[in-house]
């Protein structure tokens, strides 16, 4: 998707040369500029092509985005600085940093504050799980993507389809498939019994969660890496061989760098959603371990602490934003094309 629009380098702006602007009619008289939401949207680029619509037609989509995407994000930011009502969910409109303090500190009955690492541990655990998921997914996706590029164009198209189908398959369906496989009398245990091993509890632990996460995000890793390798000229690799490079050297120094943009996209596409995952830890992990996703959801469910849930969301959002900026800077420095959403 084209958040890549913000990431790709565009050709230098073809703005009207200053001299021309001075000789022509003053810029303000031109029929382009319109304002929406304070941002100047309508500086008409010279030579608007036939077939395009005027700026006004972009406004409905922008309004929907401002209202139902940016709006909620701002509201959650505001809520994180409000107070919790005595009972029930919702917020009281009174400024408070209690939600953020609650993230790190706990107050006991005597009013003493002390460090409470429970929630930080949830973040660490989610981060670790997301990290393992990302590393395994990329470790598997890279050879698969490389293998795909060695096929004929027809076969490549078919393989892309094969990898894309799981991508668009319902997350619950894919997670449920693993419940069927791993449950007490499920397929995996039947196989264990057949080869003479004791059946065991395979479900409802962090291993099952991890398998579910890897299963979910593998296509998210394969597609961008394949995308970046598909245009790669493999005669470069052949040339390296001819010059005496060894296999691992070629992979490390020729092919891996060529896949760089795709690998970084894959990191973002696997890590962020795995970090905030909810379905796999609940259904496969049995909800025993408190991950960030469940922790946030619980604040709007049974725990009923909306400001705290909002504060947790803000922390995740900031981490995500920092990651995205880091990625952008990396992409700019190494002039790689990174797309944050395939």
């Amino acid at each position, binding site marked *: 998707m*084209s958040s890549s629009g913000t990431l790709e380098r565009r050709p230098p702006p073809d703005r009207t040369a200053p001299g021309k602007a001075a000789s022509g009619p003053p810029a303000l008289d031109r029929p382009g500029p319109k304002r929406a939401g304070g941002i100047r949207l309508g500086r008409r680029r010279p030579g608007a092509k036939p077939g395009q619509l005027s700026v006004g037609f972009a406004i409905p989509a922008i309004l929907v985005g401002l209202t139902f995407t940016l709006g909620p994000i701002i509201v959650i930011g505001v809520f994180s600085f409000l107070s919790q009502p005595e009972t029930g969910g919702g917020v009281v409109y009174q400024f408070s940093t209690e939600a953020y303090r609650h993230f790190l500190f706990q107050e006991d009955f005597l009013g003493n504050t002390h460090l409470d690492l429970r929630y930080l541990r949830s973040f660490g655990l989610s981060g670790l799980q997301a990290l393992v998921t990302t590393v395994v997914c990329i470790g598997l996706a890279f050879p698969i993507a490389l293998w795909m590029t060695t096929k004929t164009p027809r076969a490549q198209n078919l393989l892309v389809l094969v990898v894309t189908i799981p991508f668009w398959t319902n997350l619950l369906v894919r997670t449920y498939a693993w419940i069927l496989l791993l449950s007490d009398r499920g397929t995996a245990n039947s196989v264990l019994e057949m080869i003479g091993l004791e059946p065991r509890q395979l479900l409802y632990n962090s291993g099952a969660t991890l398998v579910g996460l890897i299963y979910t995000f593998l296509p998210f890793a394969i*597609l961008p890496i394949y995308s970046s390798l598909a245009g790669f000229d493999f005669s470069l690799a052949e040339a390296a061989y001819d010059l005496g490079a060894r296999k691992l050297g070629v992979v490390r120094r020729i092919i891996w760098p060529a896949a760089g943009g795709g690998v970084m996209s894959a990191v973002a596409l696997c890590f962020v959603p795995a970090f905030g995952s909810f379905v796999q830890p609940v259904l496969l992990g049995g909800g025993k371990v408190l991950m960030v996703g469940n922790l946030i959801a619980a604040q709007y469910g049974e725990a009923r602490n909306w400001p705290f849930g909002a504060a947790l969301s803000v922390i995740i959002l900031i981490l995500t934003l920092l990651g995205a900026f880091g990625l952008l800077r990396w992409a700019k420095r190494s002039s790689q094309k990174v797309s944050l959403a395939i």
Partner: protein
Amino acid sequence: MSVETRPVPRLMRGSIPHSLMLNRFPGLGTISLVALAFLYAPMLIVVAYSFNGGNQALIWQGFSLKWYGRVFTDASIISATKVSLQVAAIATVASTVLAVLYVLAMDRLSRAGSAISTAILAAPIVVPEVVMGVATLAFIRLIGLAPGFIPLVLAHTSFCVPFAMMNIRARYTGLNPAYFESAADLGATHWQVVRRVMLPLLMPGIISGALLAFVVSMDDFMISNFLASAGSTTLPIYIFGLIRKGVNPSVNVVATMLLILAVVVTAATTVLTRRQAKR
């Protein structure tokens, strides 16, 4: 998904055939085939079990369509499916229309305006779903709406826009501007160029964008879960409840149907985008 399959660069005559690359990396094919099996085996097992005649999900008691019959007459599943289809239909149409208008107008926004608005529209893809879910819940409470059908439609429309947009945008950037210039030169009015030249040429992208928006809406569990009320339970929310209790023969059937939806939509979008590549 708009992963383009670029043409494999043709090697010069006399150089090593491209397929020989594989021989350089023994085991590559094996790893890949095992990984692809890993991707498909679990889902195929679900499909197989959906034809199980037994009352327990896990013990095979012969082929039967019994559970299909049960699911197709199960009032809760039918009503949840109806809600999902209604939400998805409205969200698909709305988000596709918004996406088409935006794509056709975005090049005339200022550079910064286009970058900012595209980033905002694309945010639902990047922001973790659980955050988007609680944020939307907080937002609709703030504007005085109660969870239910309308918030579902609004939220689905906004997170479907980027998914609808990616194929439309890809198609749009691949079109040769000469079509529109010649139409204009031949005297077509502004609207005629849009309606009679641009939209027909954009159609494969529009259809595949709409299909993806539909799937994304049908599949959403996380955001809907915060916004649905008792009367507006969507299919994913309902089956999440069933799955939480463990394996269930009805879920096998519903899962198979959703899998078929994914296969059909992915194949259709692939065909549509391929035609574009051939052009």
